[in-house]
């Protein structure tokens, strides 16, 4: 990379972006004008609502109250403390109501016509002869609503008053009888800590939102915007390497996004300072409150925000390079924004904490780091890891982008790589191959559905929930495929399998199974918690269930449904768009990542890749389905009937193997897998000869 070229490109991008009104609007006007304005407006609104509700006088009626005058007097006296005013209206003084109806009907009519805001009717409870007050009001009318809630406050106090009166009438000490247990709060956390924890909830979300907003527009502008305006081809005539181009675009976007984040933080700081100033002038609770203790947290947050801005920029750019126009790019970035915003809320989730695992989850790690910083827990290693993770992810994206950007389909493309679902179904072309955008969208949706609905279903319905969850995956995938008129034969490969392919697949699986388990055992040595978490979740569901039912839920359903989504939609799309080796590898990685467990990532990833290979060779999705079924049912039977196996074939359920055993297993696995490869290649060659 030539640093001079990058410098001039960077200068160009920054100048270009800063001269764009849309970006300026998002960057400067929104944080510096809109936020304070919103804040002031909401303050004004809140105070005006408050003054409105207290300044108003409410008209109410009482009916059947034993001693209406006494109650009226009580309410009059009390309402003076609360700053509200009640007018008691006599039914006789209401004009325009028919004479020949009962008082109650009159009140109802009066309430309907808003002559009064509420009315109270006293009755007596039939069983214990206590007084029952019924408050009639209109919840749809805000004034009536407030009147009713005020009356209920009054009645509560009135009840207290009556209670005290009755107890003292009986010659007892009302305080001892009525408040026999006394308690007070003693908060040990300092004001700074209390406020800090509040910050920890608010800041991550605001910061993530503002960085995203700041990154989105420049990212679209420098990629899709450049394409739309036709300057990309001009840029390509210059002696610029792809990586230089992408890197300078990335730097420029990250700069603007960090700038936006900084302006946002500044704006929030000014609002906070204003609030703090007005609060400390009004009350003296903030007297010993020092804002200086937040300085380290704020500084580290700023650094984290810059790195997060890099991550966001890389991600936004990555999505936008597939778009050929500004509008299309906006369509792509919106789902990404939603997913990231949701992840940004992680800081608000109880129980989720920054630790060795969450530190590697993008977006979530920044949110959790800020929570931690503002509760004054500084752990250098974790802070560093968050920063490194963000930097690493951004650079990975940049490198992938530089490779992707080489593709002429993207540079001069007709946009066939895009998201198809945005069009209406009747405008879709017949038998199309889904785009990369489609993949990103579908799998984001699947992930969200799985995280929200999936876990809920499993908790609520147990094994039936697992089945429902799997059906959901298949249904969403097939529906999406149907909607965009996917070429089902080409993408999903629902072809009749040949016996020899199934045999080859079985051999392949046997080898893969051994390799997977060795990898899993190996990783479990380093990440023991991760391995435990994987097992306990499923095992907890299995108690007292029929073995056939267990196998249907955990082996048959995943085999069918997950294969449709991963080997069907995902691999089917990739194999038509990329080189076959990359398609197989990407499928493996995504399939592994989908299991959301570090140990499984590699083990399941291997199975995913091998299944993809077998599908490619056999051209029938039923082959990987069969392998998946074999795999899951074998693992399940091992788990469920572990007692039996321990007794008869203890080798299979052992948790630790000696080094020689491991080596023998590894050799077996490799030999079996290689045999599978050879079988597939042999079958393939024979088929070609036949042609």
């Amino acid at each position, binding site marked *: 990379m*030539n640093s*001079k*070229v990058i*410098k*001039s*490109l960077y*200068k*160009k991008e920054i*100048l*270009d972006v800063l*001269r*764009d009104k849309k970006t300026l609007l998002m960057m400067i006007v929104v944080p510096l004008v809109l936020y304070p304005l919103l804040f002031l407006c909401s303050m004004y609104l809140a105070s005006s609502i408050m003054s409105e509700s207290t300044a108003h006088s409410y008209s109410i009626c009482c009916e059947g109250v034993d001693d209406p005058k006494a109650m009226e007097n009580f309410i009059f006296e009390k309402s003076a403390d609360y700053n509200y005013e009640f007018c008691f209206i006599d039914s006789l003084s209401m004009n325009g109501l028919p004479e020949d109806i009962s008082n109650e009907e009159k009140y109802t009519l009066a309430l309907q016509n808003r002559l009064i805001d509420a009315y109270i009717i006293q009755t007596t409870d039939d069983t214990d002869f206590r007084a029952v007050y019924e408050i009639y009001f209109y919840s749809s009318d805000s004034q009536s609503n407030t009147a009713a809630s005020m009356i209920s406050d009054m009645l509560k106090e009135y009840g207290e008053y009556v209670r005290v009166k009755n107890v003292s009438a009986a010659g007892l000490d009302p305080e001892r009888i009525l408040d026999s247990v006394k308690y007070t709060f003693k908060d040990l956390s300092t004001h700074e800590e209390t406020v800090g924890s509040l910050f920890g909830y608010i800041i991550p979300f605001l910061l993530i939102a503002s960085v995203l907003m700041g990154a989105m527009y420049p990212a679209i502008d420098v990629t899709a915007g450049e394409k739309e*305006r*036709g*300057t990309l*081809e*001009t840029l*390509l*005539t*210059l*002696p*610029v*390497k792809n990586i230089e181009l992408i890197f300078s675009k990335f730097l420029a976007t990250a700069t603007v996004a960090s700038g936006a984040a900084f302006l946002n933080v500044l704006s929030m700081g000014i609002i906070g300072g204003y609030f703090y100033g007005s609060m400390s002038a009004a009350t003296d609770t903030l007297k010993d409150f020092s804002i200086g203790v937040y300085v380290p947290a704020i500084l580290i947050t700023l650094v984290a925000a810059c790195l997060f801005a890099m991550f966001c920029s890389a991600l936004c750019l990555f999505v936008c390079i597939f778009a050929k126009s500004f509008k299309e790019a906006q369509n792509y970035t919106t789902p990404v924004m939603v997913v990231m915003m949701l992840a940004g809320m992680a800081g608000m989730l109880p129980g989720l904490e920054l630790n060795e695992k969450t530190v590697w989850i993008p977006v979530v790690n920044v949110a959790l780091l800020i929570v931690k910083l503002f509760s004054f827990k500084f752990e250098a290693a974790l802070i560093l890891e968050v920063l490194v993770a963000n930097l690493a992810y951004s650079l990975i994206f940049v490198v992938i982008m530089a490779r992707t950007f080489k593709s*002429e389909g993207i540079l*001069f493309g007709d946009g*066939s790589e895009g998201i198809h679902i945005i069009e209406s179904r009747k405008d879709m*072309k*017949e*038998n*199309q*191959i889904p785009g990369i955008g489609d993949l990103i969208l579908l799998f984001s949706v699947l992930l969200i559905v799985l995280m929200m609905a999936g876990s809920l279903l499993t908790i609520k319905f147990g094994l039936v929930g697992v089945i429902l969850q799997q059906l959901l995956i298949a249904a969403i995938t097939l529906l999406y495929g149907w909607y965009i008129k996917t*070429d089902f034969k080409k993408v999903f490969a629902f072809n009749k399998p040949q016996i020899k392919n199934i045999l080859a697949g079985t051999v392949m699986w046997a080898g893969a199974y051994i390799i997977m388990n060795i990898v899993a055992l190996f990783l479990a040595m380093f990440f023991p918690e991760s391995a435990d978490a994987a097992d306990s979740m499923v095992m907890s569901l299995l108690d007292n269930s029929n073995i056939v039912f267990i196998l249907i839920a955990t082996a048959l359903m995943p085999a069918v449904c997950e294969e449709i989504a991963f080997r069907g939609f995902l691999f089917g799309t990739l194999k*038509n768009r990329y080189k076959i080796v990359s398609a197989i590898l990407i499928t493996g990685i995504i399939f592994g990542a989908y299991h959301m467990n570090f140990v499984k990532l590699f083990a399941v990833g291997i199975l995913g890749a091998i299944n993809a290979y077998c599908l490619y060779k056999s051209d029938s999705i039923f082959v990987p389905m069969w392998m998946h079924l074999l795999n899951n049912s074998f693992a399940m039977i091992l788990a469920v009937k572990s007692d039996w196996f321990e007794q008869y074939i203890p080798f299979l359920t052992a948790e630790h193997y000696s080094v020689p055993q491991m080596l023998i297993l590894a050799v077996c696995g490799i030999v079996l897998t290689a045999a599978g490869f050879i079988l597939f290649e042999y079958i393939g060659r024979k088929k070609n000869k036949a042609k």
Partner: protein
Amino acid sequence: MIKASGLCKKFRRIQNAENEKKKIINKNVEFYAVDHVDIEAGKGEIVGILGPNGAGKTTLLRMLGCLMEPTEGEIIITDDYDNIINDTSDKKRRIGYLSGNTKLYHRFSIREMLKMMGDIYGLPGEVIKERIDNICEILKMEDFIDNRIERLSTGQTQRANISRCLIHMPDIYIFDEPTLGLDIISSQSIIEFMKSEKEKGKTILYSTHYMEEAQYLCDRIVMMNHGKITATGSPASLMEETCTNNLRDAFLAVSEMGIKEDEIKGDEDEQ
């Protein structure tokens, strides 16, 4: 000098086709946009590329301008001493590429844009300044060189576009329909520019739809259709071969020959 041999570019295209059940489906088919083309242009030569829309002219010029990678074949670019240049960036430094698709940065002034490009070409600051003044004089841009490009007229924009190709003083110009959509005066200025550069010994490859222009300008004409070269030679020799007296008729004659050839080939295929 620029020379290409056996140049090919394969694209994928979605095409309607009938499947076994006689239902129209979309098929992803590969086809050659440029099919084994040999082309050469030497010093002080203007080579015109003619052909109907979709003949593969733009793809060919994009490959020659190093904007696209050829699927097959190679492009040789040599410097003044006949040394072959291998690095793509170095090749681009010798080429001034201009087409209807190379738009300018609207939010920049011409001066800012030229400065930025000079920087990317790696020229020292003083040289850039000198050249900008020079270009400004040649193309008569004094009045609007500091205006933002979005505020320029079509003719002014086209001049700005040419100025972009001059900043690095290339030996080879590749122009893809440079006069398309311009009025007579603007297109004349471009024609004059090409002539003057030819006299300086520069190599010019350019495509156009305007036959008269090509007849007047070009030393050699290359006619293309369906990605293949159908005829090549000087305007005079092409007119002679086709027994016509202007290039327009010569072009039509060559196209008709092509259609007949296709039909004969089609018949053979059917048999």
